[in-house]
């Protein structure tokens, strides 16, 4: 697959050079054509800044941004074949829905008939064929979101940027729009770069994810790579639920604080952190790990056991309620846990 956007050693500083705030610190990324790529991170991690650099609203302090191989960091926004769906939608309040969608096409000086046809096609694409004559502020939040999408897609950009585009919607609408976005991406074949702080959203929608924190890219990978093999504690903690256990890595295995030993291959030696996902641990009388039940929480689909393992509290084990609610173990009870070797991720920190 060819590269759609190449980010090469981008730095972004606000304020005085040398002593300003570093929003982006030597960021490099390669985003492939026709990919649904997500920039994921907590607020202030630099993901929105990176998006604004690609759109052209900001100039990088250093580095190169390539679009299909060609450097474009010096082009103004209106010359970039890139369109943005803004977090606030930014629909023009003094224009009708159809005029909003037509705006980009008019700027390119297309003939009226072609513009009108494209507007109709875009309205059909976002499944709102009858709202063209209405004013933007007469639409619901979900509808405005779709119109913002239609307006950006009408220009047939090579890359579509979406800035926290679903965060203003309620839960139900959000789920629908996630599927809708995936559908649109498949139908249009446009590269989508999506910015979000919602890890679940990122896992659901993306082909690949870049996890960012404090202006740096921590890890790039498919959702399963990011989830199953986080490179460090920050990524593991940010994506999904994770139990962390302090351990000492030696040839004999991973020794926990109270002397229990777990087995997992690792080149590391000395103090390490074990990251273990709650759903990968099984309650099993023949298990190698022991813990004391602190609390049992029933959450509908699952029952979550909070255990004290090796002197550390809050170790969670998630068990699906295949057989409905089962009131089994009580606080204070000792349980044995089976932790498959593949479920243990050994981290250096």
């Amino acid at each position, binding site marked *: 697959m060819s590269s759609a956007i190449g980010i090469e050693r981008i730095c972004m500083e606000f304020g005085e050079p040398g002593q300003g705030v570093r929003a982006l610190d030597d960021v490099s990324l390669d985003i492939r054509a026709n990919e649904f790529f997500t920039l994921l991170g907590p607020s202030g991690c630099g993901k929105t800044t990176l998006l604004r650099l690609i*759109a*052209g*609203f900001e100039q990088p302090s250093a580095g190169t941004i390539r679009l299909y191989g060609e450097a474009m960091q010096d082009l*103004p*926004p*209106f010359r970039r074949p*890139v*369109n*943005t769906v*803004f977090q*606030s939608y*930014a629909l*023009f*309040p*003094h*224009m*009708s829905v159809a*005029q909003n969608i037509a*705006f*980009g096409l*008019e*700027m*390119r000086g297309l003939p009226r008939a072609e513009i009108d046809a494209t507007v109709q096609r875009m309205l059909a694409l976002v499944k709102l064929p009858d709202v063209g004559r209405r004013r933007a502020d007469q639409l619901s939040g979900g509808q405005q979101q779709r119109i913002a999408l239609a*307006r*950006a897609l009408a*220009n047939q950009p090579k890359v579509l940027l979406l800035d926290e585009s679903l965060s203003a919607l309620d839960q139900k609408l959000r789920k629908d729009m996630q599927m809708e976005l995936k559908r649109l991406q498949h139908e249009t074949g446009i590269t989508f770069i999506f910015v979000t702080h919602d890890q679940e959203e990122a896992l659901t929608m993306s082909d690949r994810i870049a996890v960012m924190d404090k202006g740096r890219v921590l890890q790039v990978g498919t959702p399963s790579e990011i989830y199953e093999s986080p490179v460090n504690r920050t990524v593991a903690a940010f994506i999904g639920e994770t139990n962390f256990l302090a351990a000492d890595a030696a040839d004999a295995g991973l020794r926990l604080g109270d002397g229990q030993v777990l087995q997992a291959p690792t080149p590391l030696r000395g103090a390490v952190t074990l990251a273990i996902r709650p759903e990968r641990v099984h309650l099993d009388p023949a298990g190698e790990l022991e813990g004391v039940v602190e609390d049992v929480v029933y959450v509908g689909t699952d029952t979550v056991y909070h255990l004290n393992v090796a002197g550390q509290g809050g170790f969670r084990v998630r068990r699906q309620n295949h057989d409905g609610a089962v009131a089994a173990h009580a606080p204070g009870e000792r349980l044995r846990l089976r932790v498959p070797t593949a479920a243990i991720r050994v981290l250096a920190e």
Partner: protein
Amino acid sequence: MNAAGLRHERRLLLRRLALSAPAMATLAVFLLVPLGIMLLVSFLQPGDYGGVKWGEYSLEAYVNFLYERDLDDSLVFNTDYLQIFQRSFWLSVLTTAGCLLVGFPTALYLALQSERRRNLLLLLVTVPFWTNLLVRVYAWILLLRNGGLVDSGLEALGLVHGGDLNVLYTDVAVVIGLLYTFLPFMVLPIYTSLEKLDWRLVEAAYDLGATRRQALRRIIVPLAMPGIAAGTILVFIPSLGNYIIPELLGGGKALMIGNLIQLQFGTAHNWPLGAALSFALLAFVLLAMLVYSLRFKGAAAGGHP
């Protein structure tokens, strides 16, 4: 609705009336009563040495506005007063256009500054109000007169050679004076609407391929329209009826409606004609506003060509 609900409604209505009563009373005393007196005066006979003859009703003032009484007492259509109305109209249009041309970029510049700078610059816009208008207009006389600062300045720069500038006591001087006086009334309302503007919309326009000029024309100006409309009205109407600027900078030669009205109450000793002219001005302003609001409404709803 039940009885208790109705009582509640009525209480709310009474409270609203009570709250608006002072404003209503002020309007009645200081607007409606004087207007009523003026209306009455316009239908009376002029007194011999100013004032009016109470109780002697006549349409003479309104007839005099459009006709002249010939020697044989027959009425001849006379456009003298209408010409002054027309001149006043065009001078005010020029003033308004000039204020818009200077005021819009100023307001845009103000709105784009940081908050601290903005407040300082806004203060500077209002600084002229701290000095008496008369003083400022006399300053313009000193600037514009032959041999004044502008004249000698231009000569020193070699832009004019010999001769006098001859700007003072012309329509040009009047328009300069009006423009100077009313510029803040154009800047402030436009600034207010630009300050509220969501600049992400401008970013969205750039993103969709609009150049700076296109974003200005298609996004910024339409969204600043309420401010532009308010500024236009705030400049145009006071310019139309202005008295002091044409009096001082027009030197009594370049008459505007305000001067004409003053003349009737002063040296001409014809109060009814002055009152009638005032009402003609009022009617003219209302008509202009009506036309303007219709045009403006059409432009706002039209959106794009």
